[in-house]
């Protein structure tokens, strides 16, 4: 009996080996730091012969100022347009030649460079990533061409009524903090950033002490660190970037804004100020988001879409940001819908939560949804790298990822009710509507 158990155990271990990954847990994440301040998180996962190599910089639109709005996102684009040792476009050419692909994204809080490649491309990728952290060329001709690309990306939003309304409502709700403008930036800034300003911004925020590298996939940790030390150790530490000190003043009454333009159907968006992702109220707000907006049994979907049939769909939720941001409730109204009635009906539903609270069934639902959403990205090496990065930069430390579900499970129905009362109240609200030109209002 014992022997056969032993046999089974060996097979069990072999099976785990065949699966190729140690459990995705705090203990299995290796943490390293170079002398220049560059932090590295490693998670070995040998399921597929690929590596997800993510570089996160602590810079996003919250670090910008008027005149330089959108510049964080612009630098994200320029990172592919020439560094010290690699000319414009070479990063992509060499990476693709070696079987790699990449993308990048910029948010309010961070900029991420996401590389996916087979193991044989590792050293070249580490070398190229380090080279562009060291410095960019900002070739004037290339810079102008890329400005055109960004302007085209900006126009994509201008041609999308919901994006246009979101930008306007955000700028109305947030007056002082840099979350006032969107990540893409204002068109006039896009068209007038100066090369020197862009280069100075890069030097401030792309220093190794302002970055975190996260690697997940098929590699050996010690070899990975050898390569990272070889290519990054010589990059000098930078002066720490200035803190974002502006605090949004409290809102003391409802605000409204309206757009009129050619459209087949109107748009509706209500936003409320909410605290940062690290605030103790955040898990309750996140569960409230599910109860109000996720799935066809959610309160607002059921009332606005299924029953009153005032909207085609509802969406939104709580922003997960370093500084206090907004809770969004977006409804796509049916053509001809009375937008006042839509808003009134939405308010009624929020009041029901404020006065009557939420049910145990709704809590079960929201926690189940949170768990599924938590596990789902962990199916891929890219998802693991991304979640670690978000947690490290926005949640105040990657360790917090592993206690997140516990924080959610500890939320009580009373806390969800209190969060709704405290934040989703009329004095904290900004409402925006887009009305088809020539419409009734």
């Amino acid at each position, binding site marked *: 009996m014992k022997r056969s158990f032993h046999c089974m155990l060996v097979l069990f271990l072999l099976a785990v080996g065949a699966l190729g990954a140690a459990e995705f847990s705090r203990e299995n994440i290796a943490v390293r730091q170079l002398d220049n301040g560059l932090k590295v998180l490693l998670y070995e996962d040998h399921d597929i012969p690929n590596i997800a190599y993510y570089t996160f910089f602590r810079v996003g639109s919250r670090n910008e100022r008027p005149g330089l709005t959108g510049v964080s996102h612009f630098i994200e684009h320029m990172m592919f347009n020439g560094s010290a040792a690699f000319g414009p476009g070479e990063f992509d050419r060499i990476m693709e030649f070696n079987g790699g692909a990449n993308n990048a994204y910029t948010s309010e809080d961070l900029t991420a460079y996401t590389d996916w490649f087979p193991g044989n491309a590792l050293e070249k990728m580490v070398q190229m990533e380090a080279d562009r952290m060291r410095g960019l060329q900002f070739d004037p001709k290339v810079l102008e061409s890329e400005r055109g690309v960004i302007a085209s990306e900006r126009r994509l939003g201008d041609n999308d009524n919901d994006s246009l309304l979101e930008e306007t409502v955000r700028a109305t709700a947030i007056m002082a903090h840099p979350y006032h403008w969107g990540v893409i930036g204002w068109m006039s800034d896009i068209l007038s950033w100066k090369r020197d300003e862009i280069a100075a911004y890069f030097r401030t925020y792309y220093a190794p002490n302002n970055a975190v590298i996260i690697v997940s996939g098929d590699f050996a940790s010690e070899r990975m660190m050898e390569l990272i030390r070889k290519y990054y150790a010589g990059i000098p530490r930078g002066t720490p970037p200035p803190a974002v000190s502006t605090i949004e003043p409290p809102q003391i009454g409802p605000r409204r804004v309206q757009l009129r333009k050619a459209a087949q159907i109107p748009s509706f968006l209500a936003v409320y100020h909410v605290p940062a992702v690290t605030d103790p109220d955040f898990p309750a707000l996140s569960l409230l988001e599910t109860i109000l907006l996720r799935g066809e049994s*959610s309160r607002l979907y059921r009332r606005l879409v*299924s029953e009153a049939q005032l909207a085609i769909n509802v969406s939104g939720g709580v922003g997960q940001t370093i500084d206090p941001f907004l809770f969004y409730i977006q409804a796509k109204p049916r053509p001809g819908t009375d937008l006042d009635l839509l808003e009134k009906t939405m308010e009624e539903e929020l009041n029901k939560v404020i006065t009557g609270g939420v049910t145990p069934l709704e809590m079960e639902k929201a926690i189940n949804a949170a768990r599924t959403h938590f596990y789902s990205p962990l199916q891929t090496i890219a998802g693991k790298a991304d979640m670690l990065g978000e947690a490290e930069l926005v949640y105040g430390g990657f360790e917090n990822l592993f206690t997140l579900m516990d924080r959610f499970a500890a939320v009580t129905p009373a806390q969800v009710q209190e969060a709704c009362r405290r934040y989703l109240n009329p004095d904290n609200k900004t409402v925006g509507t887009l009305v088809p030109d020539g419409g009734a209002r």
Partner: protein
Amino acid sequence: MKRCLLPFLLLVLFTGLGASGYLPEPQRFVLDNGMTVLLHLDSELPLVSFRLLIPGAGSAYEKADGLADLTAQLLLKGTRTRSANQVAEELDRLGVTMRCGSQEEFLEMSGSSLSENFSRLLALAADCLIGPAFTPEEFAKERQRRIDAIGEIKDEPSQAVRQYFRKFYFGSHPLGSLKSGTETSLQRMTVDEVRDFHRRNLRPERAILAVCGRIAPKELEKLLSTTIGRWPRSEKPLPETTLPPFPVVAGRTCLLIDKPDASQAYFILGAPGLPYGSASSPQAEVMNTLFGGRFTSWLNSELRIKRGLTYGARSSLQSWRQGGIFTVSSYTKNDKIGEMLAITFELLAKGRKQGFSVLEVESARNYILGQFPPSLESLGSKTRAYSDLLFYGLGFRYYDDLMAKVAQAQLPAVNASASALFPLENYVLVVVGKADDIRKQLEPFGRFAEKKIGAAGF
């Protein structure tokens, strides 16, 4: 917990190690009602995904635009034993998303849940599939919601251009039937047509169910016998699934959609492509990667990287059982659309005349091979791959063969693929933009029919 896990892991070991490289051979069995079940065990996370594919119930087999997809959506809007609210409540309670929709050749239902909730998810899916209520009230609501949503599509030119292109390219061919429906087709649709489509076209005999994740085979078998296994065969003959020949594209067929408030113009250019699993697919994949399938492609390099005309430009190969299309698409501000199209056609001409280089072909091969493994990494992507491969009759070693052939693709074959597929004289071109600003720029590319975006239909 560990004890229950052990048998699964052993099975993974035995089935996983001896199988093909990219996609492990699944366990396969056929239910009494004819449905084929494919199971792949993967115990890394406490999750299970499924995808059910029902051949003959796609939009290519519907009488009017939007019928198949509306039927699919209404499956989730109430059954004989559950109201629409109860279905929604139960799905949300399990914390799952279950999707139901039509593709052209089949209807698909898919979902993913924590392992502990999978039995309830599958029971619910079976109830929706076998005993939908199709009440007149839910039908009317969903139909109206879809009519309204067409306005939303027309407000977004990037979405609208795809709909107009599909309709214009395929015309009255079944692949021209739009999943979204049109204002007119939806207005005319009745709940009886939905019921009839469900009865005739949603059938278990040819259906394929793929399940991947942490679930024991015995548990699944038991589960199937009380859920989807109870879906009865029908006495009626199965619907015909052979499609008419694909449209012949002769000359330049062009359409301009006037959207007076658009500040960018969006185009799609298309011509015949290849059927799913074609012997020419490996070299065509290499060709498409080089022309418009990746960031450094010819198209993206010229239009975005060198000239800054657009945020993105791409080409793609879309395939069905009997044929396919090759498309090129991008967008730019109104006053540049003529320049953008001229460059696009110059690149197509260059591709046909001079072709790619040996080095480029090597780079594309590496790229495809390097990027392929992550495409089968998630449970959802595996259920998709298993069910697709069985549907198209390609065998589970298909991806190994495909990648082996990609690895061997040589320059002459890749260039031959470009010559065969790049349209120069015979094409369909659809542009959405502000007609007054772009009409003149479009003259060199063909004679354009014109439509207002506000007019009914696509």
